[in-house]
């Protein structure tokens, strides 16, 4: 009797877990082996920290950390949710940015006093750098967080294929390694993790349906003629691969500087696909302009880098050399003259000695007493 009751309870429980209305069944546990399937969905996620029915395609709970990860992609936006059992930071590390290197794209999130911090980092082995600090861009499109009992959840979006070389680029049908880590107590991202995933996890980006495949675009900027101190317009042209201009899309203009991209402005493409921004360069020289189209659900992002030469009279180096040369010459002439006079005096002293010796040898009887004899003879 008891044994049969137990089996019924188990079956009921199993039914509960696989019955459709159950929130757990909504997202198919889609890990066969260690591969997490990232399915294509018609609608991108709504970034509000809350998991809605039908929002995500697949999910997985990492056995080593206990982090629950939900994923989907739509167009070229990758939507991810991470739920951590602790109150500290949580991070998702997306496999080698360059094949064979130890450079990883890391996204770190922390919730402190109700404020969500999101960091787009690139890590070279142990060295951690913000993308922005090494010349890249912060490509987290949106992020939101909510507390969940003992832990918390972050929902965010990143482009599948961002314009930044410090980010991982995903393509449909591709398989990519990733790993998870979190800190149970500290929201300070500089603290080490308390747990991280130990197995080799893989993301497989599923195929995109034909009709929703995003179009590839190209943006280019013809090299402008720039003069330092003068305003000119930078023009970017956005087209698809066949050359048809794409109107009414935002195109961003940046200057590549030592420590990151300097935002110059944003232009909206007109019917000819042209977007412009007014720019006044400060100094002459060779600079690198970078124009980017961020992409939408319909269009893939694209960018172009172009070197421009800014003309302008270089400030002539203040020629202080002549003044210093003059001063130096005068100083050395004067000092030289003085020491020349000293040399003359020395020659006079030698002359005195010569005379003295001559007088002594001429009058040997007065050797050593010449002066005295003279004086006594007054």
């Amino acid at each position, binding site marked *: 009797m008891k044994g049969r009751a137990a089996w019924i309870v188990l079956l009921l429980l199993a039914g509960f877990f696989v019955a459709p209305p159950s929130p757990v069944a909504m997202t198919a546990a889609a890990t066969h082996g260690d591969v997490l399937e990232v399915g294509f969905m018609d609608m991108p996620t709504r970034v509000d920290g809350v998991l809605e029915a039908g929002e995500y395609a697949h999910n997985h709970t990492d056995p080593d950390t206990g982090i629950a990860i939900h994923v989907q992609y739509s167009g070229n936006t990758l939507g991810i949710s991470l739920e951590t059992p602790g109150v500290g930071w949580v991070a998702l590390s997306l496999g080698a940015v360059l094949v064979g290197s130890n450079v990883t794209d890391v996204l770190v999130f922390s919730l402190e006093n109700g404020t969500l911090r999101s960091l787009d980092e690139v890590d070279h082995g142990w060295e951690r750098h913000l993308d922005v600090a090494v010349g890249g861009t912060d490509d987290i499109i949106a992020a939101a967080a909510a507390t969940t009992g003992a832990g918390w959840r972050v929902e965010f979006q990143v482009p599948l294929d961002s314009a930044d070389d410090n980010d991982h680029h995903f393509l449909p049908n591709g398989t990519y390694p990733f790993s998870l880590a979190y800190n149970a107590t500290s929201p300070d991202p500089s603290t080490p993790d308390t747990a991280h995933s130990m197995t080799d996890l893989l993301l497989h980006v599923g195929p995109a349906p034909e009709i929703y495949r995003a179009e590839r675009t190209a943006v280019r900027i013809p090299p402008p003629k720039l003069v330092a101190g003068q305003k000119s317009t930078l023009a970017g042209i956005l087209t698809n691969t066949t050359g048809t201009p794409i109107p009414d899309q935002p195109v961003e203009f940046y200057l590549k500087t030592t420590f990151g991209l300097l935002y110059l402005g944003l232009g909206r493409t007109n019917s000819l696909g042209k977007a412009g921004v007014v720019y006044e360069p400060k100094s002459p020289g060779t600079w690198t302009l970078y124009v980017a189209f961020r992409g939408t659900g319909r269009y893939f992002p694209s960018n172009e880098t172009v070197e421009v030469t800014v003309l302008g009279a270089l400030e002539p180096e203040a020629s202080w050399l002549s003044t*210093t040369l003059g*001063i*130096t010459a005068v*100083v050395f002439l004067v*000092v030289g003259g*003085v*020491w020349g*006079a*000293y040399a*003359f*005096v*020395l020659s*006079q*002293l030698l*002359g*005195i*000695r010569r*005379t*003295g*010796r001559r*007088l*002594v040898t001429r009058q040997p009887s007065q050797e*050593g*007493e*010449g*002066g*005295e004899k*003279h*004086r*006594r*003879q*007054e």
Partner: protein
Amino acid sequence: MASDRDLGTDALLAPVARWTPRFFVFIAALAAVVGWGAYAYGVQLQHGLVVTAMRDTVSWGLYISNFVFFIGISHVGALMSAILRLTKAEWRRPITRMAEAITVCSLFVGASMPIIDLGRPDRLLNVILYGRIQSAILWDFLSIGTYLVGSLLFFYLFLIPDLAILRDRLTSIGRLRRWIYRKLALGWSGAADQRRRLERSIGIMTILILPIAISVHTVVSWIFAMTLRVGWNSTIFGPYFVAGALFSGVASVLMAMALFAHFYKLERWITPLHFRHLAYLLLVLDLVYIYFTLNEYLTVSYKSEGTEADLLASLYGGSYASLFWTIQLGGLVIPAFLLASRRTRTTLGIVVAATLVNVTMWLKRYLIVVSTLATPQMPTGWASYWPTWVEWSITAAAFAGFVLLFSLLSRVVPIVSVWETLETPETPPGAATEHAPEEVAA
């Protein structure tokens, strides 16, 4: 006349001929102080400048104050020998050598002070190897070096005839000393062409030594004036320092005169007349220095801009007030009164005034260096500086060293120039143009 002259010569040569036991004790005491200072420097070399009281705010202290002071009093040689010679002031003759000796000794001591102040004295050669002509320290290097060589030459030129006298007269001294005198006398016998050469050399050096001397303390002042610090950023520093140098130099000569007249029994040559002449000179320089001081402080106080106001407040009524007013009253005002009034212008009064001047001029150098560095440039409080035993010891050794060198010099050559002084009783003042006693002989 001859016996008179000989007696005179004997009296003047006596300190050279005979060294009293009292002198040896004196020298030993001075050498002990110098030795103690050398030990203190050794401690500094071993542990670093941390043994001083200087820190990142007050980064210069006693050493640089001593440097400026000693280079200052070195100007007296140029003043006495050159200026007074050019103006044909005959009364200068007994005291010129004293003045020149002060110059030489103080230059040696003064030039050693910045080296003691260096953090890396082992790299001193870098100043020659990598020297930058735009730096005031390089100007100092060139200027003081040139002045030192010039003063030594100048001193030596005026010494040659006296060396001949020493060579001929002093038979009682050791063979080594006689040999040195003979070599250094260059076979001087008063021959016509020797006199001509000497005269020519003296003429050139007299004219040359003046601009060199003026340049020396001017460039020393420019070390301070070329910075942007309150109290130092002043255009008047060049002439101010030169005036101060002459001022303290004359005071030093007066002190030396009093000591030598008494201890070497030279009252016959260092007479109240000399004291009075120098007293007038001191008074004039005092008034000139007061003029410069008023210029400096009045103009700054009138505008009282920014950080200058902080420094002035401290000088007039703050932490440096006692020092400031001691210097102004004790060093400028009181000596002026002592020297101006006939009643107090006795030899004693003059020497007291001179001592006051010298002491306060040293305090003045200290004030210039330290008060400016202690004035806050950034929003912090005032820094404090009170020298440690190492700095005091080295300062004492500097003064002892100076007195030691000077005393030794006074015992090696006659401190009153024999050949310049003894012809004066023979010839009426102003008429004598030939300097060698031998001229009277056939």
